[in-house]
């Protein structure tokens, strides 16, 4: 539409610049805070310009940790978070794509029943069944383990539904052609369906990775051994761990490191991220 409206567009830019500022501000403050020496936070107002201590602060949190703040070096926690996020992502994707394949490409007794069981996972988030789920994991001896951190979280109705949705749009004839070409179900899955799903897998991978990395309540429940702490929950230990004011320069360095991997994932795979987000929720 031809709309010659200089003020309107100026106003829009203004709103958006303020919006972007609002969105960036907290993280900007964190980055700045992570570059200052501890003394800065004793009194006065937090600084808004970088300080001289960046290298030292990051070195401290990554390699040494602060026993006083009740945290181990976060190098290990970063690794734990990465392993947990990857295990959750790969696990979710694998079991979801297999279930969707079964539900779309086979007809068998109790198919609908299984579909509803999967659907149930949507209605039972961890948050509403905290205690009994903890009990089950404890009974299975999965506390303080990567299996315990990841396996209970990998059942996913959304991923299954997304794959199902996508499989329904794959032309019928492809499967028929593959059958005529002598491919059995698993061969068809491996040779045709998986390669065709690759964009969807990648998009879901982005979403799931962020989901896995940002887990908070679950690791909090089932890890008591600092060796299995993940970075996101570790921050909480640092903030509320001591009686005194938290060591803000170290907390913020940790915050930056904890937020960086998922932010990078989003920035570098924005297209996939948007696709994954808007399509899983349909």
């Amino acid at each position, binding site marked *: 539409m031809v709309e010659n409206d200089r003020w309107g567009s100026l106003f829009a830019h203004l709103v958006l610049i303020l919006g972007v500022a609002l969105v960036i501000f907290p993280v900007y403050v964190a980055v700045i805070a992570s570059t200052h020496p501890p003394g800065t936070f004793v009194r006065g107002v937090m600084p808004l310009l970088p300080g001289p201590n960046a290298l030292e602060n990051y070195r401290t949190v990554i390699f040494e940790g602060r026993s006083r703040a009740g945290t181990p070096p976060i190098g290990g926690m970063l690794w734990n978070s990465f392993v947990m996020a990857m295990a959750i992502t790969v696990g979710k994707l694998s079991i979801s794509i297999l279930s969707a394949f079964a539900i779309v490409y086979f007809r068998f007794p109790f198919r609908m029943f299984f579909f509803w069981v999967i659907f149930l996972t949507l209605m039972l988030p961890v948050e509403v069944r905290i*205690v009994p789920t903890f009990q089950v994991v404890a009974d299975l001896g999965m506390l303080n383990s990567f299996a315990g951190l990841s396996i209970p979280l990998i059942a996913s109705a959304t991923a299954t539904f997304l794959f199902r949705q996508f499989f329904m749009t794959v032309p019928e004839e492809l499967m028929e052609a593959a059958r005529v070409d002598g491919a059995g179900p698993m061969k068809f899955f491996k040779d045709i369906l998986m390669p065709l799903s690759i964009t969807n897998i990648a998009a879901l991978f982005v979403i799931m990775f962020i989901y896995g990395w940002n887990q908070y309540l679950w690791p909090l429940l089932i890890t008591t051994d600092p060796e299995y702490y993940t970075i996101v929950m570790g921050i909480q230990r640092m903030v509320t761990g001591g009686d005194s004011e938290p060591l803000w320069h170290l907390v913020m360095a940790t915050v930056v490191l904890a937020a960086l991997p998922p932010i990078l994932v989003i920035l570098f795979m924005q297209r996939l991220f948007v696709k994954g987000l*808007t399509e899983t929720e349909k």
Partner: protein
Amino acid sequence: MQTKRSTFSNSWLPYALLAPQIIITLIFFVWPAGQALLQSFYRQGDAFGVRPPTFVWFRNFAMLFDDALYLNSLKVTLYFSVGTTVLSMGLALLFAVMVNKMIRSKETYTTFLVWPYAIAPAIAGVLWWFIFNPNIGILPYVLEGVGYDWNHRSSSNDAMILVIVAAAWKQISYNFLFFLAGLQSIPQSLLEAAAIDGASRFKRFWNIVFPLLSPVTFFLLVVNIVYAMFDTFGVIHATTEGGPSQATNILVYKVFRDGFVNLNMGSSAAQSVILMGIVIILTVIQFRYIERRVNY
């Protein structure tokens, strides 16, 4: 529910394919949910096995609704959810409408607005906790300048505002993306027709854009309420821990406290059951609405 026109015939393979998903769901979802349901009807026994658990019908539920703390938690959850949803969706809609006007800078603004999605709720909480820190935080400093003495450690209102801001901030990018997608799917020709019909820009938004966005808005409403009620545990836990004096003790946080810290299993289970009821209702609403668009 459809399958393909022709399907593979194999008597055991589909079950094998479904097995991992179903087994995990049964062990880690259905079984604990059943346990919660069961426990919610019992009064727990003591630790020494002297007094066995007793079946108490709905007493746990009755006690909950007699409990001022629980009723307070319901109220707090309501305020928190509504506040978070309205703030986050309002800002997101504003940004989406503005970005949708842009041509060259659309991508750039989008990139800048989407990345907070990557930030965990707990971290969002810590960030705002820092900014609002009564001693050194920048916002209390600014507020002091206009005569407001901010302290979320003692003021219930301040604490509530803090957690709402943190929770809403993190959710803006999600809402923004969906609003933007919704706006982009509105045919330009409709707006052109309205312009030819002499509708002002404001009228075009209210009479055409907004009604056409209503499916997205409704969907986001449900998603945001679910988010505020269940996914914000980290925001609370990493910052106010429910305080001061229960002012931010939302339902999910209370279940956790009563179960893990206060070890009141019967009450915690009953609370879980109520929460499940809420999720089920929200999920059903969401899917009934989606069903109209997508045929399952």
